[in-house]
């Protein structure tokens, strides 16, 4: 069995860049882990809270003294709380229900998201403080689940910390797992890969599979939560593993989380190691987030594609004439994060008042056409109407299409008419 945080020379396609600096963070309501990569390293490293140790988890705690402007966090905050009396301490600020909750810190009021921002600012600066890195990093934070509310909170935090959508992103654990795996040796995921993520009382199972029939190769990740899990019950866990692996061709297995602490995995490991590579550790998601930063922020071409829950599921395009050449203009691409994706273009209408939208699933060659008729558009000469088209995904399989009549300068004034349509993924 191996630890998956040791250095390896990778034979796969890790991007090596000069003078770039990337940070991946694994964030949940109890702790954070920070991995980082810069050009001096072969693979991402993870910051340990104690020098030379493998303790990576930074407790999600903030503390502050009345007379001090400086915030303490993690282990430092815990020690401070134990010594000092008149302090403000908080630890539950990264829970959905606490994002808008207010906390009274002496004479100041903070919301949960403000405290989260303070904590993130501290941990993002960790690698540069320890290793003397001067550049501003590109940051990706991974967490269990993302919805629009969470996305907007983190987008706002990113802006306040001086980042933009390209340099500060959030992903879920599935996506982090995907990016981690595609940066491992290809032998490790020739077939399926299983990840078991255990906490004190829950177990989550992620199964990564791929379809070699397409180019790029489509990767899929199934997820299952097991409510009743007790760490230490080796026999029961082994039976569970046998059930999970039955009929599966699994190349490698990853055991992640506190639930696997304590050397209780004897029978389970014996079973797993038969014909498979097995890894145990805690920092897979933070490393996966770091790999994500390296690949996504650079828009690198890779041979794989994964459509996560937050990724838009189809290509939406229009056919346009561009300097007398017909071409497809893609408004939203499959695989784009649907919270971030938005596209605007302006076109001149010709030969009628309809606009055809082409919807195509990535694995299909053919596209379906959905035509929108701009009802009650004033009748004008041909090619004398400019329209604005704005496509905004509202979920991973539907998009809000807004069309606005802009008229044609002073020649034909805008009617101020607009049209809204919701387009769904083709069946």
């Amino acid at each position: 069995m191996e630890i998956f945080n040791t250095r390896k020379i990778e034979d796969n396609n890790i991007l090596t860049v000069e003078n770039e600096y990337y940070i991946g963070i694994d964030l949940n309501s109890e702790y954070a882990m920070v991995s980082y990569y810069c050009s001096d390293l072969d693979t991402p490293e993870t910051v340990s809270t104690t020098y030379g140790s493998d303790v990576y988890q930074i407790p999600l705690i903030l503390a502050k003294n009345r007379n001090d402007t400086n915030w303490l966090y993690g282990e430092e905050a815990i020690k401070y709380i134990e010594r000092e009396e008149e302090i403000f301490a908080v630890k539950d600020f990264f829970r959905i229900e606490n994002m808008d909750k207010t906390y009274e810190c002496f004479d100041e009021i903070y919301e949960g998201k403000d405290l989260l921002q303070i904590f993130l600012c501290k941990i993002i600066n960790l690698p540069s403080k320890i290793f003397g890195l001067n550049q501003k990093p590109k940051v990706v934070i991974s967490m269990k689940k993302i919805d629009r509310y969470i996305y907007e909170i983190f987008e706002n935090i990113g802006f306040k910390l001086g980042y933009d959508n390209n340099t500060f992103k959030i992903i879920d654990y599935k996506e982090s797992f995907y990016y981690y795996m595609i940066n491992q040796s290809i032998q490790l995921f020739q077939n399926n890969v299983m990840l078991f993520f255990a906490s004190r009382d829950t177990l989550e199972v992620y199964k990564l599979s791929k379809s070699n029939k397409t180019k790029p190769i489509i990767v899929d990740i199934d997820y299952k939560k097991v409510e009743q899990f007790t760490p230490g019950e080796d026999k029961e866990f082994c039976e569970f593993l046998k059930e999970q692996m039955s009929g599966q061709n699994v190349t490698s297995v990853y055991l992640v989380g506190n639930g696997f602490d304590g050397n209780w995995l004897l029978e389970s490991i014996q079973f797993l190691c038969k014909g498979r590579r097995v890894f145990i550790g805690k920092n897979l998601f933070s490393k996966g987030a770091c790999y994500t930063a390296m690949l996504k922020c650079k828009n690198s071409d890779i041979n794989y594609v994964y459509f996560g829950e937050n990724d838009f599921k189809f290509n939406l395009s229009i056919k346009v004439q561009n300097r007398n050449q017909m071409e497809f203009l893609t408004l939203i691409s499959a695989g784009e994060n649907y919270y971030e994706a938005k596209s605007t273009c302006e076109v001149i209408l010709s030969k009628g008042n309809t606009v055809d939208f082409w919807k195509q699933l990535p694995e299909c060659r053919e596209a379906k056409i959905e035509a929108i008729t701009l009802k009650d558009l004033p009748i004008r000469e041909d090619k004398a109407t400019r329209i604005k088209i704005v496509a905004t995904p509202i979920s991973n399989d539907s998009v809000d299409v807004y069309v606005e009549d802009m008229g044609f300068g002073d020649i034909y004034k805008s009617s101020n008419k607009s049209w809204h349509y919701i387009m769904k993924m083709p069946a």
Partner: protein
Amino acid sequence: MGELILCTSLLAKVPYFWENVSENVYSLEELVYLIKKNVFLVDKTMISEELCTWIEMEIGDKLLADELRQDLKKNNRVSSFVNILLDRVGYLSASENDNIVKLLIELETKSELEVEKLKADQLLKSDKILRSIKNYYKLLSYTGKRQMDDRFIGNIWHNLGSAYARLFQFNEAIDCFLKAYSLTANLNSLKMSLYAAFCEKNEKKFYEIAEEYDVDTVILSEIKKNVEDFYLNDSSDLVFTEKNSKKKEENVKNLILELKKEYKKLCS
């Protein structure tokens, strides 16, 4: 199925004012549209550093602006400047672009007088009546100073007549048509003078002209019938036949406003 032409340039916040057509232009597509409609009004006053600066600063297309500047330095010809513009914008089809450029090349071979007349005719067609009248009189002021044959001058008088008629100045229109007829002997000019008289409901003048120029009664009847038929089919009559008096009053007001707006545009 509708087609879409991609707009590759921004909309300008500050428009370019194309003086010859008296229009504000906010985009390259609008500029090309107006060029197509007013080819004869495209001249060296338009192909200028001012236009290049507008394209660079307001449209945001420095590449195009620089290319046009280079062309101004190198060629300083309307046809080559417009060719670059049309090709880059891609608003018209390739054949439409070719036709415009060919026409501009042809205009470059015509005399100044011919070009000025074509411009004045274009202004008339584009409902810039007052400006067309001004341009026609400018051309007529060259009579005796430059070589212009009777036919050319006669055509100018005829078009002047049309311009005045559009402004409902029928007396002036009649004079112009008759001058045109005296120079060209074109029956159409004589007919137009009779139409003008009839439209003004000046029967005395109508018959005076008919008698002086010995117009056939068949032609006179044809003219009367055409005008009467026009009034019969005129939809604005529906405004007056409305039975509901309140609605009728509102319709009349709206019609007057619309006609006023149209007339103002003709005089712009």
